[in-house]
């Protein structure tokens, strides 16, 4: 009996609350928050759409060695200023350099690393919502 009430509550929350918190990120936007939050910076938003207009996948994922896994590359600012990962282009020559901190570090603080609008993030978002419901 109680279970049924709770299920109704959950459905209620999902129906009426989710539209207001729905994220409308672009398909393939990667939020990277490996170290940012801890360092007091906003997390990085990497927009795949913007980059794939300018580069084929091969450039980053074969030549620059980006693993195809959100947050799987342990990128830090030292690597970037040494020309690795993002720093291969974000050096003031191909693209803006590291001094434009807040153009990359532009995500909402506290958000978890994930590929937005991806099948897997949709699945985990549902479980996260359930968990959030449990916490109340």
């Amino acid at each position, binding site marked *: 009996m*109680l279970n049924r009430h709770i299920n109704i509550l959950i459905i209620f929350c999902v129906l009426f609350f989710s539209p207001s918190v729905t994220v409308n990120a672009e398909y393939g936007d990667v939020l990277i928050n490996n170290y940012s939050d801890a360092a007091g910076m906003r997390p990085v938003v990497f927009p795949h759409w913007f980059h794939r207009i300018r580069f084929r996948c091969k450039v980053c994922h074969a030549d620059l060695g980006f693993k195809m896994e959100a947050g799987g590359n342990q990128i830090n600012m030292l690597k970037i200023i040494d020309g690795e990962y993002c720093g291969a282009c974000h050096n003031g020559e191909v693209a803006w350099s590291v001094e434009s901190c807040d153009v990359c570090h532009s995500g909402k603080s506290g958000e978890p690393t994930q590929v937005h609008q991806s*099948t897997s993030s949709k699945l985990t978002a549902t479980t996260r919502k359930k968990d959030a419901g449990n916490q*109340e």
Partner: protein
Amino acid sequence: MKVTSLFSGKPMHYSARSTLAAIILAISSFFVCSAADIRSGKQVYDSTCLACHAAGILQAPKLGTRQDWVEREKQGFEVLLSHALKGYKNMPAKGGNPAIKDEEIENAIIYMLVSAGFDQYAKPSVTSDAEKTTTSKTVPDKQVTTAKTTTSKTVPDKQVTTAKTTTSKKVPVKPAKAAKKTSSNVNQFNRLMQPPAKWNLAPTSDGIHDPENAGTHLLQEPRQAFEALTRSKSGNRVDWVKALENSEIFPRYERLSDTAKPVVMDLNIVREVKGSMPDVVYPHKQHTEWLDCSNCHPAIFIPQKGANQISMAAILLGQKCGVCHGKVAFPISECRKCHSKQKDATAEVKN
């Protein structure tokens, strides 16, 4: 308080129940209140109108662009309203969303007119208190001051008459509609789907970028970038393969070279699949346009016939094809793009 018993079904503590009840009450009362309200022009605009009126798609007059509105405004508010309600040329009735109330459409038009500099439409409300709250909410700062001065002094004749005609015509209709009180969403289609207005939003309103951050405002809007690209039904709403084929985009194959050409391999691999689904044809051609062999081989796919176990379950979990499809390449919902080879008719009869 931890309510871990939500799914286990174990009895909950009494206080837990009462809190839950309180939450339900709070939520439901909040919802009932908000459902009865008429949304402001900006809210309506943000939910639907902006799909076309932000960028001026299909010759829609743009928000904040006065020259787009001058001729239209001359026709009078009633004409604009009837066009918006019933549809006109490329403008679908109610912007294609029948769930929007007539009053809300009215508010949205006023919002757009005011944004284009037609300050006379900024609503002077009945009571001064209400006016303060509504104007400060819906109208940008500049207009608030002008609205205040006009109302405190004497309002020019024109504005009064237009205001009178609109309200006097509408008044008998409004209570009848409000009395119905049925949810305006009852006839809405695709409740759980993203409406077109929510596609390709600007970084400042996409929910993952921090709008407080100055850098966010420097970022390009996807909608603007995608304007000239072949559209698709899912993902970014862009058909990236076609966009490349049609030379709408020129993504570099080498980091520093505009001219380097990819090493394209034209080889189709057919994978027979279980059940009634058509077999999968995997085209190396489109993949090698974008990728290097080493992106997939040998880590994700062993380059040998019959050596790879692939299932939709694995793909949904982000493995095999799902490393890209469902994340950046076209999503899983595009079944037919992969399952494209009709099974042999004779084989089907045998089965």
